[in-house]
């Protein structure tokens, strides 16, 4: 793969990819632009992934005098550590269990059986994309808080006492589990779909009952997907901040994320103690990932089965169970989608929150929305969110499309490291990332603390793995012959990349771009530690309303945000259809 001297245009195009420090030497040295681009991208990824972690460890274990475990003493000294660990594990384990059970069951029903209301499944599955965790949690406060919850209002006359208390560990598990169950659903739907139905049919023909087939054939076959769902969900629930912060802090139910926030924000600020907790949470996440990997490693022989044309999905008849299952699905749909969204709209229209009554409906007003539009910070937050989301998405996808080439196509030694580095942020909970990045820029001379730039760095780091996944997936789908034939035709590496690979990658890049844009709109945990007054983003605005107790204004902002996200997701799907992006 030798390269001829680069065309002029190619040289110009190298600038935005951030080949650090390469510009002055490039014209003198006969080194190819490929070298600088690759080295620059690798360095950028390394910087984003490793520097915050380095500072976190340094800042936690060392102070001015040297090695010091004072942070741990102070963090763990409060005497309630057992409770903190217990809550964290119960919360993460419980919600992971709930979402795995619900998500896998729904996926099986949807793909494998003639279940009614199939369209509702996918409506439910995009909910976590359009309803940010913070709004979802607030909705459930509206529904099941012991004081104001609508469900309690309805059921109190029946039971004599409020049956639900959302401000408890069970409430936290319920909300987190439901909110993340669609993630499991989507992962498992893909797994069930890619499974040859005749594997199950042949079990039936062998005389196995439905249950035996499920236990001995279906589940073992989707084990790899099941384990990777466990991995994803475990990390999601460990790093969940919104649910424990909104539901747990009131009654002093701390998990690691909310405790870190509490310590970080209390005065005098004890960064070392916050760091100690962050390191502990990171350690749990890493151990969790390693265990899941080990388990998966034992089972991830990728089962490649010869498949012929007989791949028409033949859904199983549910027979007499159909109405029962159908009712269950309707209940699930109302609990996860309709209820939370309706209650949000309902609250947004009320001057103050109350149970539905003729009086309440009569008092419907758009006053909350007016307040939002008159709020200075609202417009600013929207602009900030947009600017941050778009910049992060552009930067990440640009870096990752090169990184994907390095890891999938190149023969450069150490290319595996680039890929692994880009996935490091996956195991860093958002709140830990916030702590780490604040450590870096509180100490480094670069004056970006308290600007939007620090948020941008956080977002780029956090969403790097998602960008990488999108980019590598599309890169592996492009036959290497397409690239080689461009080279044989005389194109340089950069020309090949630009004229052949990028256009072919564009559907994947586009999908990654939109995904990052959408998820960055909902980012709360690391933003909360890094923002400063004046550069709020939308999620911070909602958080502030929550802290002020202005729930109805919050609901109004929430409704607007959901509308905005629905529009973005719709555009994404339309765009996806246009550039030939296909699901599964």
């Amino acid at each position: 793969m030798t390269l001829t001297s680069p065309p002029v245009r190619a040289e110009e195009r190298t600038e935005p990819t951030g080949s650090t420090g390469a510009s002055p030497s490039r014209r003198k040295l006969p080194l190819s632009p490929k070298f600088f681009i690759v080295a620059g991208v690798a360095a950028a990824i390394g910087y984003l992934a490793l520097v915050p972690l380095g500072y976190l460890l340094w800042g936690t274990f060392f102070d001015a005098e040297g090695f010091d475990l004072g942070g741990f003493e102070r963090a763990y000294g409060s005497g309630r550590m057992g409770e903190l660990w217990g809550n964290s594990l119960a919360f993460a384990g419980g919600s992971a269990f709930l979402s795995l059970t619900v998500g896998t069951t729904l996926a099986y029903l949807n793909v494998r059986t003639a279940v009614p209301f199939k369209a509702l499944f996918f409506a439910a599955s995009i909910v976590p994309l359009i309803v940010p965790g913070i709004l979802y949690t607030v909705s459930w406060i509206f529904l099941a808080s012991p004081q104001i919850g609508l469900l309690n209002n309805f059921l109190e006359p029946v039971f004599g006492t409020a049956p639900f208390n959302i401000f408890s560990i069970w409430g936290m598990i319920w909300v987190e589990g439901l909110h993340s169950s669609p993630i499991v659903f989507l992962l498992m739907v893909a797994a069930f779909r890619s499974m040859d139905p005749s594997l199950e049919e042949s079990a039936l023909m062998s005389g196995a009952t439905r249950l035996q087939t499920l236990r001995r054939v279906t589940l073992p076959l989707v084990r790899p997907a099941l384990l990777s769902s466990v991995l994803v969900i475990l990390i999601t629930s460990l790093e969940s901040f919104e649910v424990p912060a909104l539901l747990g802090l009131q009654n002093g139910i701390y998990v690691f994320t909310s405790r870190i926030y509490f310590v970080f924000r209390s005065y005098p600020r004890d960064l070392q103690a916050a760091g100690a907790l962050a390191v502990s949470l990171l350690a749990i996440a890493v151990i969790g990932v390693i265990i899941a990997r080990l388990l998966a490693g034992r089972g991830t022989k990728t089962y490649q089965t010869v498949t012929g044309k007989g791949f028409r999905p033949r859904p199983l008849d549910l027979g007499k169970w159909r109405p029962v299952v159908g009712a269950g699905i309707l209940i699930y749909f109302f609990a996860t989608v309709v209820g939370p969204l309706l209650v949000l709209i309902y609250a947004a229209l009320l001057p103050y929150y109350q149970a539905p009554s003729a009086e309440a409906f009569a008092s419907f007003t758009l006053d909350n929305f007016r307040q939002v539009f008159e709020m200075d910070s609202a417009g600013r937050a929207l602009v900030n969110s947009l600017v941050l989301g778009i910049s992060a998405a552009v930067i990440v996808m640009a870096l990752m499309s090169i990184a994907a080439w390095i890891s999938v196509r190149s023969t450069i030694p150490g290319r595996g490291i680039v890929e692994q580095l880009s996935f490091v942020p996956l195991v860093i909970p958002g709140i830990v990332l916030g702590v780490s990045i604040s450590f870096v820029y509180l100490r480094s001379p670069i004056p970006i603390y308290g600007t939007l730039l620090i948020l941008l760095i956080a977002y780029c780091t956090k969403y790097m793995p998602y960008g990488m996944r999108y980019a590598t997936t599309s890169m592996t789908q492009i036959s290497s012959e397409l690239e080689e034939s461009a080279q044989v035709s005389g194109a340089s590496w950069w020309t090949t990349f630009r004229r052949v690979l990028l256009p072919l990658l564009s559907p994947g890049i586009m999908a990654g771009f939109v995904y990052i844009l959408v998820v960055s709109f909902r980012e709360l945990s690391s933003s909360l530690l890094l923002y400063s007054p004046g550069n709020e983003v939308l999620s911070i605005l909602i958080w502030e309303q929550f802290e002020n107790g202005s729930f109805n204004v919050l609901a109004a902002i929430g409704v607007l945000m959901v509308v905005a996200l629905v529009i973005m997701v719709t555009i994404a799907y339309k765009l996806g259809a246009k550039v030939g992006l296909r699901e599964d």
Partner: protein
Amino acid sequence: MLRIDHLVKSFAGEKARGKKNKAQEGHAAVFAVNDVSFEVKEGELFTLLGPSGCGKTTTLRSIAGLEKPDSGTITVGDRVMFSGGVKGGDRAVNMPANQRGLGMVFQSYAIWPHMTVFDNVAFPLQVRKRADRPSKAEIAERVERVLATMELSPQAGRQATKLSGGQQQRLALARALVIQPPLLLLDEPLSNLDAKLRESLRYELKRLQRELGITSVYVTHDQVEALALSTHIAVMEHGRVVQLGRPREVYESPSNKFVAEFIGTSNFIPGTVGSAQGGQHSVDTTNGRLFIESGSDLPTGSDVVVSIRPEAVELSTESRAGQVPNEWHGTVVARAFLGDAVDHVVAVDKHEIRARVNPSVSFEPGTQVYLQLDPTKISLVPVG
């Protein structure tokens, strides 16, 4: 052994939707299987042959119990597997697939990749109800025996996915046979193999079927496979059986143009029956009169299509008129060497006739040749 009576299956989705959806009303339901009846005798290998979408697989899956027909009956031995029920008569029956006790080999083999070869074969015995489940030792013994028959004993402990294509096919067969089913269903079991392996396994399959004497229903779209393997063939088109007979009958006297076309390449020439007596026909075609010996008499004056198999045509540069009943004259347009034969395309008047001849005979394009047509190898296909 197996009896299928008036089996009908329409695509359930279309039918159900058609009722609700006004736009689809008026469109007839799409019939995958439309009034199919046949009988398979003990020990036979019965083949359902046809192009994709002709309903052969749907028929097989209905026998298996993986598809629920709309009406008709399916009986294996004296057990009614399915019965659509008759008004005021028998009750509807639909035995679940897992209680029919039949053996089936899938097109994809459906070998469970998370089990060893042994476990794959043992599975059907292990999942039996406790009461009739054989003991562990007996299961092991029976699995071993069937693996030995399939020459898979050395692979017993291996992961099933490590097997080659041919071994996987034999494993699928072993799994289907371990319960000693009364009926074996095979859904295009050879279509995933390469040409050479397919040929050797075809004979292997035939030998096994004959040795074990197991009644089988075989689905394929490959006419060579069907001709080589079957005791009887049912050719299907658009959900109906269009011809049912022994392989030689189907090949030599196709009942219509579709069958003739589908089973091997053929030359078709339209004509009218001039006279017919005791199977001796004389047919007037645009290329002249042909004498044809065919099984049954067709009425004089009826329109027919004459089907001439390429291998029924002999070519030579010398006329043998007088010695043979049918001789045409034409010009070679193209030829292709096929290894065991040479294909010639010969222009005769307006028609192009394909002739497949011994490789020792080969004529340059442009050569004037005489075509001699054996009257016993030409078949008459009624039109309409």
